[in-house]
């Protein structure tokens, strides 16, 4: 049973991607909790800026030739690319969701975790859609850069200081839906997985 479970976990996540992702995610989560002791504003800023990147980062790591020891064997296997990509995305999103909800509770702002989760879903969805053009690690890097640019832009607008206000949530949800539609429309392209090499 445990052997079967281990095999499935590896299929889902990519063998060596979990540890670096966990270190990165734990740094962001604990960082936001620690910063909260000094400043609630900067704690939220850390969480809002970096939290939404976590699922996409996990996906990028899990397809990295540097982190996945069996990367070439995975690519050369007949395992469906779309299924593997979505499995990995769901697992990293679920792990992020659990962490965000706990952190929201820990900070005494339960709604914050949920709002960051909506952004994380949107960022991940855009990352998945971008994976129909770029290899997942590049798609994750692209989407991270795009998200950071959006945050800088929104914060720079002054009166709209919170990128997760109701307008931000609506935009994030719409973006997620649009990206999912792009992914669905381009799923056949996605299974042309030579580019992962």
């Amino acid at each position, binding site marked *: 049973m445990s*052997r*079967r479970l*281990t095999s499935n976990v590896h299929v889902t996540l990519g063998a060596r991607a979990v540890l670096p992702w966990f270190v990165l995610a734990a740094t962001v989560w604990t960082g936001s909790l620690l910063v909260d002791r000094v400043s609630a504003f900067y704690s939220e800023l850390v969480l809002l800026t970096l939290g939404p990147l976590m699922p996409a980062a996990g996906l990028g790591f899990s397809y990295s030739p540097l982190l996945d020891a069996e990367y*070439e*064997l995975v690519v050369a296997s*007949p395992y469906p690319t779309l299924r593997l990509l979505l499995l990995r995305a769901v697992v990293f999103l679920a792990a992020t969701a659990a962490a965000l909800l706990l952190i929201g509770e820990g900070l005494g702002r339960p709604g914050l975790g949920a709002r960051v989760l909506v952004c994380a879903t949107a960022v991940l969805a855009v990352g998945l859609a971008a994976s129909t053009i770029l290899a997942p690690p590049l798609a994750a890097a692209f989407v991270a850069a795009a998200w950071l640019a959006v945050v800088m832009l929104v914060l720079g607008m002054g009166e709209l200081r919170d990128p997760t206000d109701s307008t931000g949530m609506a935009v994030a949800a719409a973006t997620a839906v649009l990206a999912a539609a792009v992914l669905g429309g381009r799923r056949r392209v996605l299974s042309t997985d030579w580019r992962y090499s």
Partner: protein
Amino acid sequence: MIRTVHLSEVVQHYGSACALDAVSLSLTPGVTGLLGPNGAGKTSLLRVLATVQEPVSGTVSLLGLDASDERDRTSIRRRLGYVPQELGFPRGFTAFGFVEYMAVLKEWVDAERRRAEVRRVLALVGLGSVATTKVTKLSGGMRRRLGLAQALLGSPEMLLLDEPTTGLDPEQRAAFRALLLDVGRNATLVVSTHQTEDVAAVCDRVVVLDDGKAVFDGPVPEFVGHATGRVWVGDAPDGSALAHRRTASGRYRHVGSPPAGSEVIAPDVEDAYLLLVNAAQEVTR
């Protein structure tokens, strides 16, 4: 004889470096050795054959299917076994667990049949007794055989091995060659190697790559035949030779144009390889 591999004008680049320069090949079932200096394009060619890497241009037909077509490529992967040059193993896995993980990726859905197949391939490579041993505890030779075990899942029709005998001791190498000979009876087996002894021991055919080009493609006897009359021995290195090597007897074996009165001997695969590669480099210079 059925052509199982057909490559036409395949080109592969890494940035400005050309890894494969219009390589055309046709292979049939049996064992083909892939020889060439470091950076000649052997690994790139195997990666293209393994459908891991798409060529910049050219056509790749494997097992009668078009590798550029998505559905065909999945079908090819179902009938393919591959051992890359750098095969990493996940931490914490036993030999059995690792091969079972690969079996999951190869769509062995039924758990009972999958485990039976894993046991079969482990026994085939002589690792049945260490199935429950952690991969980290296995010797280098055992890990090589473990890599081969995962490639043998489902008895693939095409098997691609990138330097499979590297790091094996002579006894392990002999056992490994016997295994390759056995597997090569029913499959198209392509073995990239630096060991010319591997080619002599197991290959029906040899392809020599140099600077991304296939400079020879033919049966092993024909390859060796090209060096007939071009190999001589002497008690000291001969500066006029294209290449020389010291033998176990302490004498020197030379390839090139033998000087008058020299003791010409029958060539082997290594002589033919040294002659071909050094002659090509001589022309380039």
